[in-house]
């Protein structure tokens, strides 16, 4: 029963990791940009949900209604200006620019909101859970986040494979020049991909704020977990990211069960094992590495 609980709790955390990671995966897959400010964007989304939404009389649980479209817009604009400018120079510049962005965001948040922890207030819902067996408690919030993660990945997968715009995104990811020669304005397509990535990271940030406390510097550790989920699952595979996130979550729960200090360590060990044994990730194609 203890083991079952470890798997269940791991899978629940894994859903959050996947939700957090899919935008990172999309940015890397399509734009070839490793967004080092990805985690900080999630934190900003949390702050917007905590401080802006109440002004508009929107309860915490529904804050995504305004935060997600706002972040999609921010993602598009940021891509068409700052990130595109750095892509035009060289790949290394994108690392520097997004790293710089990360530093600026963290310090601005510290300056404005101090280092105090914040949570997205969802009232009594946070304490509610489903209790199917003696020691197993499934928090409604965590279950909801897992469901949202699965839904987001499913919709994204359908969008990429069935719609014209989705096909163009894949075309640009495959071969940017050939996509241009087929009439695609790749800068606009990049903007759309960034908008989607930012929308998903906004969801992840709000989810994080509901599940636990966050502070201006919370982005870094979550970015690390997101990276691990993407690499374990395999770059370029959305469902792989979900499986990677769940595998990471289960490994962490397993480590925590042995000794609470081993939680992060166990995740990192799994990550290194996958890198050593199957560098393309569980669902990745070998060609993605070349």
């Amino acid at each position, binding site marked *: 029963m203890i083991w079952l609980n470890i798997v269940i709790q791991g899978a629940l955390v894994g859903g959050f990791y996947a939700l957090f990671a899919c935008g990172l995966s999309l940015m890397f897959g399509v734009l070839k940009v490793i967004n080092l400010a990805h985690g900080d964007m999630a934190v900003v989304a949390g702050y917007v949900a905590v401080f802006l939404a109440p002004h508009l009389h929107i309860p915490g649980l529904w804050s995504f209604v305004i935060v997600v479209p706002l972040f999609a817009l921010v993602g598009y604009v940021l891509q068409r200006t700052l990130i595109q400018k750095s892509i035009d120079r060289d790949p290394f510049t994108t690392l520097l620019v997004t790293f710089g962005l990360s530093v600026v965001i963290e310090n601005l948040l510290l300056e404005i909101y101090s280092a105090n922890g914040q949570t997205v207030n969802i009232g009594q819902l946070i304490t509610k859970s489903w209790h199917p067996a003696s020691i197993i408690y499934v928090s409604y919030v965590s279950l909801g986040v897992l469901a949202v993660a699965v839904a987001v990945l499913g919709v994204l997968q359908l969008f990429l494979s069935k719609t014209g715009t989705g*096909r163009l995104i*894949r075309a640009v990811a495959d*071969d940017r*020049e050939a996509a*241009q020669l*087929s009439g695609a304005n790749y800068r606009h397509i990049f903007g759309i991909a960034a908008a989607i990535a930012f929308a998903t990271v906004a969801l992840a940030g709000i989810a994080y704020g509901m599940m636990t406390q966050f502070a201006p510097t919370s982005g870094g550790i979550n970015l690390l977990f997101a990276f691990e989920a993407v690499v374990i699952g395999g770059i370029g595979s959305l469902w792989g990211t979900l499986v990677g996130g769940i595998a990471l979550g289960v490994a962490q729960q397993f480590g925590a069960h042995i000794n609470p200090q081993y939680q992060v360590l166990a995740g990192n060990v799994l990550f290194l094992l996958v890198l050593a044994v199957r560098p393309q990730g569980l669902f990745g194609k070998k060609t993605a590495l070349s």
Partner: protein
Amino acid sequence: MSDSLLEVKELSVYHGQLRAIDDVTLSLREGEILAMIGANGAGKSTLLRTIAGLHKPSSGAVLFEGTDIAKLTPNRRVALGISLVPEGRRLFASMTLEENLQVGAYRANKGPFSIERVYELFDWMPSRRKQSTWQLSGGEQQAVAIGRALVANPKVLLLDELSLGLAPIVIERIYALVPEIVAHGVSILLVEQDVAQGVAVADRVHCLLEGRTSLVGTPPDLTSDQIDRAYFGADISHSNTTGDAAE
């Protein structure tokens, strides 16, 4: 010069320090097939890529239907009616045959070509439309690349090294399509290393040597000797004797 669809005027293009195209002027008339021939590194592909908008010229102009298109991005040029079939096919590897054509058709101009029309042109395609492009042979991939460009309904089709890596029989079959494409009102500027193939299909031939124009003419008027000299540079036998004399 109103009958010129595409004009290249005194065009120079650099790759870093290297001048890949040096003061080249040419024009393509409506309904014409113009073949650019030349050895490896003569600048043929660079010229096509510059016309398609993938390289920026350092001087000179590219005019399409009389207007300068130098500032336009490649996708804007596709919208005007210039499509390039790039060297090496460059199909979208994660996609099926049909999806490749759908990408080409997404921002298509109005015209005679549709995915269905391409399926009529290449009758083997419908039964294999769900296959990934890496499952296709080189010649089949080349056909998909041509189809992907055709569904955009270009006025000018730029073909870069169709014969690259293909068996002679396959090359022949691909080139047999060229007149049929022209019959639909498409003008063609093609680049070919295979001189015989280029000369056979073209209305006019334009030879490049180290980035410069070395010969222009219509195939019936050109002797193979003239073409050899334009293709390789100085007459081979002559350069030998001058070399001896210098020593």
